[in-house]
């Protein structure tokens, strides 16, 4: 860490404490750092995947269960060739007024497509991966959803992954 959150301008400081107070045990805390995996090739040759907790999903797929008291531990594949108009958002836990006008503010699929076309990155995995961030059982999330998505990311042939925890 180069700074502590108290010294920054996070727009909602104390978020971890607030949520953990309301839903004890729901927030993840780790004591250790995982070893860094090395890049195996230059970015311009690497296939990138994107993982998002924004609840973005292709129209026509089973909507995320935003009403379940302990959350939805499933994920959706979002084809990386999708147009924003092919996609919709199912979630109720973060402000979507920006994303409603331009999905790229939370799920920048058009920017990914441009960067791949320009060969800044080697390419995109066939799918991106999306779930909802409202999951009150962090142990279950780690045991099921996190492992399921990690396996799917490997199966899709990703060389690098960018994540956006909404």
């Amino acid at each position, binding site marked *: 860490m180069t700074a502590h959150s108290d010294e920054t301008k996070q727009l909602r400081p104390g978020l971890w404490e607030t949520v953990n107070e309301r839903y004890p045990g729901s927030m993840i805390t780790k004591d250790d*750092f995982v070893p860094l995996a090395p890049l195996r090739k230059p970015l311009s040759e690497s296939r990138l995947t994107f993982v998002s907790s924004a609840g973005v999903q292709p129209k026509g797929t089973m909507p995320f269960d935003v009403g379940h008291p302990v959350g939805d531990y499933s994920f959706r594949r979002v084809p990386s060739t999708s147009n924003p108009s092919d996609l919709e958002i199912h979630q109720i836990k973060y402000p979507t007024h920006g994303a409603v006008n331009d999905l790229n503010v939370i799920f920048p699929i058009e920017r990914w497509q441009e960067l791949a076309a320009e060969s800044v990155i080697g390419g995109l995995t066939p799918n991106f991966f999306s779930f909802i961030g409202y999951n009150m059982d962090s142990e279950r999330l780690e045991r099921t959803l*996190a492992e399921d998505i990690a396996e799917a990311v490997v199966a899709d042939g990703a060389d690098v992954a960018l994540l*956006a925890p*909404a």
Partner: protein
Amino acid sequence: MQRAIEHRGIPTVSVTVALDITEHSKPPRAVFVPFMMGHHFGVPYHRELQRQIILEALDHLVKAERSGEVRFLPITWAQARREGKAIEEAAGRMT
């Protein structure tokens, strides 16, 4: 999630707007943007900003030297909103 992917040998980086949660969950690499929740890549129609944040994250993916390293971007939410508003006005969109 990010740790599970990194464990499988795939380098990862996240873009976060909640630094305290990042400090608790200890992802391998993160870029912090001081933006509103749900607006990790900036504001609508601001392609350059969206792109800049992605490129910073990719650069951090390449250059971070130790697990847990967080990069801070020198941009404010107020600045992002101002620029976004100007872009929308220039395009003739009602705001």
